[in-house]
């Protein structure tokens, strides 16, 4: 097998150049998909039979919750790469993904709480799904705090990678919480096998919104990673040239 594609990721300069090329496309895709998905969900999808219009919160709640979990999985994978191959870019990805994941986890909890009031009659309940999502938020805080607390970069990378890996145990718990325990939270809307539990004019905008959130996450992650690469490689000559080029107008 040809491993050159993998070795390329070891070069910060290669990453910086490639991500600069992807970034505009991802950003445009994120804006378009989010605009279409949310407008469709808010104004054009039919109302739900029992919840009527309050169910429209699903078009932000489900994508945010999806992303909060996907982001943690990404951090766990980056943690493995960072521990096994000592790849610095993996640590950059892990550290920069954590705040975005925390924000998305916050959005899914808050939108869920607001949705819960008209639907369940309460903002919060110590239900298995809600509690495991709250634990996910604290795991994010843990990774962020750990990364900031340790000044030695290699030690911080190792500690955060281990925490990301250990915390990944929580992801299957979140996923199956609605099946293991008798909860108030409804089971999954989308399944890989089997039919969707909604009609197409409801789940299509949801799918578009989920894709939009993925593109948004990728865009913001790349923006943050590119800045962090510049910071960490500030002594490299290509970074100095890039800084001079970008700040040329301000001189």
């Amino acid at each position: 097998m040809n491993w050159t594609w993998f070795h390329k990721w070891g070069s910060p300069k290669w990453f910086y150049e490639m991500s600069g090329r992807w970034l505009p496309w991802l950003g445009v895709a994120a804006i378009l998909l989010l605009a279409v998905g949310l407008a469709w969900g808010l104004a054009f999808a039919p109302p739900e039979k029992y919840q009527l219009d309050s169910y429209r919160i699903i078009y932000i709640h489900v994508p945010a919750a999806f992303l909060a979990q996907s982001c943690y999985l990404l951090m766990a994978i980056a943690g493995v790469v960072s521990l096994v191959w000592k790849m610095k870019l993996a640590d950059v990805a892990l550290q920069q993904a954590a705040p975005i994941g925390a924000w998305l986890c916050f959005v899914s909890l808050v939108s869920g709480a607001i949705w819960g009031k008209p639907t369940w009659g309460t903002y919060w309940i110590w239900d298995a799904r809600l509690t495991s999502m709250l634990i996910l938020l604290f795991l994010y805080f843990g990774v962020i705090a750990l990364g900031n607390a340790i000044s030695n970069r290699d030690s911080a990378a190792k500690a955060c990678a281990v925490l990301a890996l250990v915390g990944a145990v929580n992801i299957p718990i979140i996923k199956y919480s609605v099946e293991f325990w008798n909860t108030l939270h409804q089971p999954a809307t989308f399944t890989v096998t089997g039919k969707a539990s909604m009609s197409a004019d409801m789940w299509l905008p949801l799918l578009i919104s989920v894709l939009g959130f993925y593109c948004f996450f990728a865009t913001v992650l790349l923006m943050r990673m590119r800045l962090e690469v510049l910071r960490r490689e500030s002594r490299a000559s290509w970074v100095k040239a890039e800084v001079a080029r970008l700040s040329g107008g301000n001189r």
Partner: protein
Amino acid sequence: MYFESFAEFVAMGKHGAYVWSAYGITLVVLALNVVLPILARRRYLKDEARRLRREEVK
């Protein structure tokens, strides 16, 4: 369009306050996630360019 008028769209049945507050908070958080890295990048480039100029003088 499912709603018959703009007023109905804003009202969201009786759930306008819930739907719009959830969407509002989400959009603010998403915007923050874009704006903060852009500001951080601008500040970094400014500081770094100044530092590099100082090094050149030495």
